[in-house]
């Protein structure tokens, strides 16, 4: 727990300055499932990136990259909106490659 600050020590109006605050990892809120992607099917439409209620879908430039599991709450919206079914939900305890990236049916190394 951070030390509580005085009223004149915090930004006005409830503004939160991103660099000044601890970003709590919310991936622990997942209730049994997490997303994984088959990059063979991904067409980089980034609809999942747009629809993710958190910032758990990572993009590299305009290309889809993978999932930031530290912040993914397992809501499955990304799998729902994926037009090519590249994203699938798998059990949370299933071992997946880093960022959930699969290529040619197997783990994809960066």
């Amino acid at each position: 727990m951070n030390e509580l600050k005085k009223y004149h020590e915090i930004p006005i109006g409830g503004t939160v300055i991103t660099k000044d605050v601890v970003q709590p990892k919310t991936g622990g809120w997942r209730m049994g499932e997490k997303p994984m992607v088959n990059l063979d099917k991904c067409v980089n439409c980034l609809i999942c990136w747009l629809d993710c209620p958190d910032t758990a879908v990572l993009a590299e430039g305009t290309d889809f990259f993978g999932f930031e599991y530290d912040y993914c709450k397992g809501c499955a919206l990304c799998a729902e909106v994926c037009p090519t079914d590249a994203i699938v939900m798998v059990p949370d305890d299933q071992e997946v490659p880093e960022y959930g990236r699969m290529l040619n049916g197997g783990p994809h190394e960066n």
Partner: protein
Amino acid sequence: MKTKPTEAERIEMLRRAKLLTGAEGAAHAMRQINPDVFPVYPITPQTPIIQTFSKFVADGEASTEIINVESEHSAMSAAIGAATAGGRTMTATASQGLALMIENIYIAASMRLPIVLAIGNRALSGPINIHCDHSDSMLARDSGVIQFFVENAQEAYDFMIMSVPLAENHDVLLPVLVGQDGFTITHTAEPILLEEDEDVQNFVGEYEIPYPLLNLQKPTTQGPFDMPDYYFEHKRQQQAAMDAVPDAFDTVANHYAALTGRRYDAIEEYRLEDAERAIVVMGSSAGTMKEVVDDLREQGEAVGLLKVRMFRPFPTKKVREALGHVQKVAVLDRAMSFGSKGPLYMEVAEALFGAGPSMQNYVFGLGGRDLFPADIRQVFENLKNPEEMREMQYIGIRE
């Protein structure tokens, strides 16, 4: 002491003046300020403000983005969005429209957004009524906005302009409501002195807030949730912002006086310094009262007037200094707080607590009821024996 201009000064002023209503005056101020965004919904008696301003924009005399929204709730929501994003934002409303905005006015104030609102003060329903009183602005009394009530069209124009740098002062950063009496000011043409467009532009300067949401170099989250561990601190900050208003307003008023020759204070003292009896009032009625004060002064009566321009933050100290020596004070409210005394009376009573004057409270002019010079003379007459009228009195009511 403030006195009336001489005949020669009046003629010189009329030579340079334009004949405009208070609503048109506010619209001209907005044209010269040229805000980035103006989300708005029409309502009597404010409509001529947005109608006149919309014409300016349509004619290319201002480049403001006008958003025609579906309600005042949406107008204020859009204003919050625009101001948060980093645009200078204004809007206008009255009566039920202000009532509908109130939820979001609290949010604008607590998010510290310097939105300037032009208000055509009008009674609240019910019964439905389109004429003037101050009940609508009193809805926003505790919301955390700066509130002005002006006396005439000139003040309506001047306070719209002064409100911009006041709202945007970095020690302040609060919304401002500039209330002008519905119809009496909004729809009545008077000579107004307009400043040069360029001078007003330079006076208000560039819009600059500490954390514009669209500044991606300094990413921020705005308007988040507060738990009990920080909500109170953010409320305390709003009071600190209010505490900064008097000094900020003095600076703005001095700069404005340097530009225009018109120096405004939070209050206006009229023939008060040797007065034994005084009336306190806000809004257009002060004009009628000055005439009555002059008449009574000619008959040798020691009477005076205190006009309150700034209602929030209330200029408690200035009111106490102005009235401390007056023996009998009548406060005339143009709004009621049913079950208690009038809102202006309660402020003045707090300011004068322990200072000694006997006080009376009158309610007048609700729903546009006329106030006549004879009524004001009667108030001054009643003040000779203030103890006889301790209960709230009603001017012009049939009883």
